């Protein structure tokens, strides 16, 4: 599982260009910054009010005044800039964040995204997620292709014809990266553009509820250094 997540993070890192301003969700998305191609330097934005997040901090090195949006203590780069929450969300909503990487519970054929609430089960709040996916120029979803139910041992598709959980935003997803493949969200629907060699197109289709168009230019899943 950890290997699969590393694979996804590595593939996702290839989406970043030098100089990008990015916002990475907690968990898998945070791993992306460890795998950036050589020469690609990005500036990470943190919703709680700064640009220039560098990564987590060792016990003993914490600065009580520098936390990330998950409440964890983090390191800041020399070009860090701190601001208030209105400025932070101004930067997000204003299209100044080039890309955001987030996990998802569900994504559908229209690029609709559900990743903030499971009614009756998970109640945390949307935090900055709704603003992020509406405001970022590119929204990349990184996730395991299916939802594994630990109790039953059954896996269920997360890429659906239509989201049935409350959505985080409508039509915002640009790219979906899973351990199996890369899918682009286009006006005509979901386009399978890259396939990992561990899987066949049939495997992917079986694990996906949404209709997938296979790109005539289908390429192997690219995580070469």
């Amino acid at each position, binding site marked *: 599982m950890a290997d699969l997540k590393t694979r996804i993070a590595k593939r996702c890192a290839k989406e970043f260009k030098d100089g990008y301003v990015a916002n990475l969700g907690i968990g898998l998305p945070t791993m992306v910054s460890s795998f950036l191609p050589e020469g690609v330097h990005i500036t990470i934005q*943190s*919703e*709680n*009010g*700064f640009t220039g997040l560098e990564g987590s901090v060792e016990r003993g090195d*914490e*600065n*009580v*005044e*520098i*936390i990330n*949006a998950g*409440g964890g*203590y983090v390191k*800041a780069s020399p070009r860090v800039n*701190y*601001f*208030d*929450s*209105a400025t*932070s*969300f*101004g930067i*997000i*909503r204003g299209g100044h964040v080039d890309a955001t990487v987030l996990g998802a519970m569900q994504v559908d054929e229209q690029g609709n995204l559900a990743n903030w*609430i499971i009614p009756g089960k*998970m*109640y*945390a*709040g*949307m*935090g*900055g*997620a*709704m*603003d992020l996916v*509406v*405001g970022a120029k590119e929204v990349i979803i990184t996730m395991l292709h299916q939802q594994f139910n630990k109790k039953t041992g059954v896996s269920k598709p997360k890429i659906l014809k239509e989201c049935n959980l*409350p*959505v*985080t*935003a*409508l039509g915002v997803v640009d790219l979906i990266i899973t351990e199996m493949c890369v899918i682009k969200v286009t006006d005509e629907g979901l386009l399978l553009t890259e396939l990992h060699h561990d899987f066949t197109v049939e495997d992917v289709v079986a694990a996906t509820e949404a209709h997938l168009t296979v790109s005539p230019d289908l390429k192997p899943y690219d995580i070469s250094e």
Partner: protein
Amino acid sequence: MANKIRTALEAIAGLQDGMTIMVAGFMGTGTPEILMDAIIEKGVKHLTVICNDGGLPRGWYSDYDTPRGTGKLLEAGVIDHIIASHVGLTPLVGQGIIDDTMECTLVPQGSLVEKIRANNFGLGGVLTPTGVGTIAAEGKMQIEIDGKMYLLEKPLRADYSLCRASVCDEFGNFLCNKTTKNFNYLMAGAADHNIIATERLVKAGELDPDTFQHSGVLVDMIVEGEKPWQI
């Protein structure tokens, strides 16, 4: 010149059961702890609290940690209604909703800050693309501008705002270090009574005025005595 300096208890003397307060901070960072303590000491109840989140619960980072920020108010059971963007770190909110002892209104974080700023800065509301087509749009006016749909987010008001400064002068001009800024530069001024609890209090003119990033005209009362959080 009217003196704005108070003790914590003096500053909240007018705070009564059922009032609405704004509490700055992001997961406890940048929250005025001595004002939280004063509220609990005074024993005010049934508060509506506007804040980013539920603060931090007991023992969050180190086992011996007290709750932080609004986490203190939640633990003391003085909140009837919380208006926030994210309450996942404090199980007390989820529990309160299940037990029906607490109401929770969730607002996307960027909209929450604009609603507070709108009230502070005299706007009737702002139009944001955030939340269109989601639960966050429920009950809100939608307006189409040049072919794009927006939600109208109206101002949020409060009786008191409780903010924290790293350095504050006696007029109320203040600054917040690093990521303690968050809601402090928005909430100070957004309520009928605006209180700043500061780590360091200086005389006006003692420091270069450009050091300060928020205007003292938005501050009504100043309380000294905040301490840096100890990890």
